[in-house]
Every structure is written in structure tokens, then in C-alpha cells.
């Protein structure tokens, strides 16, 4: 085997009770599935709250988006979107509306433009 998604490898090693060796996860190391499912929902920051509602289930903790980004990005960059420091609002909006690889596009009913603006500003906050 060449490269196993580390977060998932840890999960499996724990679950299988096989005593298997696990690698240290790159992103979302200590994040439980419950935190992934509810991230940001009670935040006072509207951007974080919307990110939690619309995006976190794939981009926080041991999740499919974080796993795929973890493979693509170099080691210095976090795989969880809300920890990134290189995202611009325009880039976020482009990816959300057009999709990227296996990330599906979001339509304007489930995510109206004003909500997307809020999420994009939240994800771009660290790069300003």
C-alpha cells in the first residue's frame, strides 16, 4: 500500500480491534464525528454558523473533503477548510458554484448568493 488516508486508517484500526498500527492524522485529528456533524451550528459568527450548516460535514474532522484535500495539499497546509490561510472569497465562490473534482456544485436554492458571500468571507478571513 502506498498512501492510506491517515484519519480513516486510525478509525479503522480502532474499530477493528486488530491492534493494527495507525498513522497520525493530518487534519481533524481529535475531532469526533459528533463535532463534524454539528460544527459551528451555535456560533455567534454568522459565517461560521453557515459554514457549519452547509460545509462542515465534508470539511471538518474525519470527513471526505478533508481527506481528499489532505492528499492534494502539501504538509504545511491544513486539510480542514476553516483552518486554511490561503483562500480568497472569490475562489471559494467559484468552487462552490462550479464544483471541483468530486465536490458537487451547490445550487442557489440550497445556498443563496448572500449566504455564499457570508461563507466565503468567513473562509477568507485568515488570508486578509
Amino acid at each position, binding site marked *: *500500500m*502506498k*498512501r*492510506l*488516508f491517515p484519519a*480513516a*486508517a486510525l*478509525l*479503522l*484500526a480502532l*474499530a*477493528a*480491534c*486488530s*491492534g*493494527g498500527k495507525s498513522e497520525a492524522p493530518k487534519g481533524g485529528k481529535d475531532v*469526533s*464525528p*459528533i463535532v*463534524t*456533524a*454539528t460544527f459551528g*451550528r*451555535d456560533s455567534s459568527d454568522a459565517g461560521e454558523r453557515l459554514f457549519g*450548516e452547509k460545509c462542515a*460535514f*465534508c470539511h471538518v474532522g*474525519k*470527513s*471526505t473533503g478533508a*481527506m*481528499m484535500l489532505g*492528499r492534494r495539499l502539501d504538509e504545511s497546509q491544513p486539510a480542514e477548510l476553516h483552518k486554511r490561510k490561503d483562500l480568497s472569497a472569490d475562489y471559494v465562490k467559484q468552487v462552490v*458554484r462550479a*464544483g471541483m*473534482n*468530486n465536490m*458537487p*456544485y*451547490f*445550487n*442557489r*436554492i*440550497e445556498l*443563496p448568493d448572500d449566504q455564499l458571500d457570508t461563507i466565503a468571507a468567513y473562509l477568507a478571513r485568515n488570508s486578509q
Partner: protein
Amino acid sequence: MATTFPRKLGGGAFEQSLKEFRAIVGDQWVLSGEEDRQSYIDPYALGDGADHDCSAVIAPASTEEVQAVVRAANRHKVPLWPVGRGKNLGYGGASPAEKGNVILDLSRMNRILEVNEQYAHCLLEPGVGFFDLYYHLQEKKIPLWMSVPGNSWGSVIGNALDRGIGYTPYGDHCEQICGLEVVLPDGDIVRTGMGAQDGSRGWQHYKYGYGPGWDQMFFQSNFGIVTKAGLWLQPEPEMTAKIELAFPHFDDAAWAIDILADLRRRDVIQHNIVFGSPVRAASTMSQRADWYEGEGAIPDSVSEEMMKKLGLGWWNAKINLYGHEGIVTAQVALIRKLFEPRLGKRLEFQFWRKGEPLEKSAQGVPTTMGLQCVNWYGGRGGHLSFAPVMPSDGKLALAYAKKIKAYYEEIGQDYYASFTIGRRHINNVSLILYNRDDPAMVARADKLYRHLLAEAAGQGFAEYRGHISYMDAVADTFDYGGHALRRLNDKVKACLDPHNIIAPGRNGIGSAPGAVANTGDAR
């Protein structure tokens, strides 16, 4: 992407209908531009998905708006394809079976209308997602648990109406529905069960009402649009225990399925059990190229390497137990007695008791991790499932698995299988993973699906749920009495929906030439 119109409607007539729809729901909630239509194409489409393109999208916010839209659609002969949240991935997403339908997106109708802690039920609109309901229960500290499917992005009610499943108690989602509110094709509203009484105080308490029970008529069908549904939830148990069992040999399926199915029938195990192959597990944490880059199906030697590295068996089953401490403890002892001598090792369960952190429990937590498998081959991936219903017989399952595995290998597809074990049946899920931008692979996926369909039908088995591209093909396998069921469905459709307005072709209903008199062939 070319402009698409519904059926034979011309551009002018269609524009006139859109004007009326906009007056009902507001300009913002009717989408017809190319980019907006593109955003509703199935992200797992076999190819570009244009063969299931919609002509527009309408997003009502209330039952009254749904009624008004349906009445207008009848006047203009515009077919509507209702979706709860449009995330039925692997079955077509939001895309309609018939190209050019207007998608009726109910995701704005997302109110959790009631959660009753004492009686463990809730009343939901179709736009409520699994994550929404889960957060609501967590935030309000309501000690009720929910069942979640492998892809929890979608609608709680939509999943139940398509007979989706989860893997904890209450996992037969359609069985948890108690009472529907439905807008019929003529715009009338009906409430089923006890809800047929005005002011009923027992709507979510008893499923059957008085006289015929119509609820099942609105599952996997196109006889109406569900705008509210009651759902039973699981009272938080006193204790849970969980373990993953790994069965090392392919032939273990025969004895292991027999034992697990018996435990399921007796409700020792209270949930649908997934019994899955190595690629099923590996595809949620790795990509194919991590293991093998050769042509054709992954060789058994590579699967065995996966098993060794990941601590898997040829078959893998996750078992959860729920209830009072005395019951769970006894169930654990029984499972140890049944499996430890055969597996040759002590089984180490993880226990949770009420009050401890829920992370240790066997609670269903919504997740989208199951979607990771579409990255298996690389590129823009998708998956297609064929899952015939069979008796829960171990020898039969093993023989079937051997035959299907051999065919996967013959055509060069990686074997991905699981048996979902219910009380009286198993679903043999043959998952077909593909890169949707690789035409040869897409063609192979289609060939494999059609082969599986024919193979199952030849043995007396049929699919439980349909992808939009195969709804007619699956319906054709239900052929007793010269397709008597299909004739009945079409008669009901013609009676209730003479203009074939609601989801034409859904599960093969109203798609045959002349099935519904006023529309002819809906395909």
C-alpha cells in the same frame, strides 16, 4: 448546454408557465438559466448528465405554494419532479427521470414542526436534512436518537419515501413514517392515518387510521407530493455495545450470514447489518491507485494485502446492541458464544452507558463519509448500486457472491459487495464505482448493471430501489401476470394524474406508451 423544454411545450408556452410560477413563489425561487440548471445535474451522472437535464427549478416555501404550483402545472401541462433536498446520490440526485421536467425543490420547506420527547416522534417538512434533525436533538438535549443513512446529506423524509435505510434500530426508514400530508396531482390535500381527522391528536401515534392505509402508495411513487411526515425516533437506551467482526475467508459468508440473520430475525441484533467486502472498506479511506494500478479487476492477492494492512476480513460486519444493561450484557454473551469459537479469538466490545460521552455509544451520527468511495478510480467519480432482495440464506448468498464476483472480474471491474441483512431478507448490494468522464468505464458500468439486473431476475430476485436511468428496466422485472403490477400502477396514475404531471416515469409509473392517456409516451 442547450435550452430544454418540458415535453412538447414550446418556448412561448413554457415562458408563460414560468411567469405564473414566479407569481406564486417569487422571482428568486424560480430558476431557469443555464448555470442554475447545470447546478441540478446529478453529480454522479453516467456521462455529462444532460440526458436528465431539467427545464427549470421551482422552490416553494409552503404547502399552499405547492398546491398552487401543482394547479398551475396542470393548466400548462408542465411535469414536475419533486425532490426533498436533491441529494439522492447514486440514484440520480435531483435529476428527473424524464428530460425537461421542472424540478420542484422542497428544500426551503425545512421546518421541524414538532419533536415529542415523551412519545418519541417528530413531524417534519421534506426539506429537513439528517444533520438538521440531529443538531436539533443535540441542541435541545432531547434524549431521542435517529437512524442515518451512509450518505446523510439528504432529506430525512425523502430518504424514507425512497425506502432508504440506516444501520441502527429504526434503520428501515420507511417503517418509521407515521402519518403523511400529501398534495395530490389535482392540488387537493390529504392527510393519511389518524391525520384524516381534523384536529387529530393521534396522527403520529398510530399508522393505520380507519379503512385502507394509503401511506405506502406515496413511497417510491408519483401519486402525490409529500409536504409533511411524522417519524418515530428511538428513545435513548440505557446502554450500548459495539464491535466490528472480521471474517477471514470468502466462504465464511455461508455460516456467518446464517448466524447473523437468525440474530436479526430474533431482534437480538436490532438493526440492518452490513456484511461487506474489502474494497467496500478500503474505498472509504484510500484510492485504488494506492493498492493497484493494473488493468482489469483488482486481484485477490491485492485484496488480501488490503485485509492485512487494514485489519479487515473478506467480509466485515459492524454489530451494535442497545437496551437495558441486563439485556445488552446477555446479548454480548450470546454473540461471544456464537462467534468466538469460530473466529478463534476473544471479541472486545466497546460499551457505553447513559451519561457517558456519546462518542463511545452506538448512536447513529449523520455523516457523508460513505461518499468517499466515489474517489476510488480517480477523476470525477460516481456510484451506481444494484441491490436485489433475497432470502437471508447463507449458502445462497455465498453462491450468488461467487457468481457476481466472477462476472466483475470478467469485465474488469473491482468487486465491491455487501449484504445488508434484514429480518427476513438480505440485499446483495453490488456497488459499481466509475469515473464519469471515462466513456469506456461508464459503458462498462452500464453493461454491468444490466447484467446484474438480468442475472437477478433469472434467479427470481429483483431490485428494491431504482436509479433514474434504470427505472423502467427495473420495473420490467416485476413481470408477474404480464406486468400486472405495472398496469395497476398506471391505472391509478391515469386516474389521479391524467396529465402525468407529478414525476412521470418515477419507478416506471406512467412512462410506458399510452400508460396515461393524455400524455402518451413520457420518455
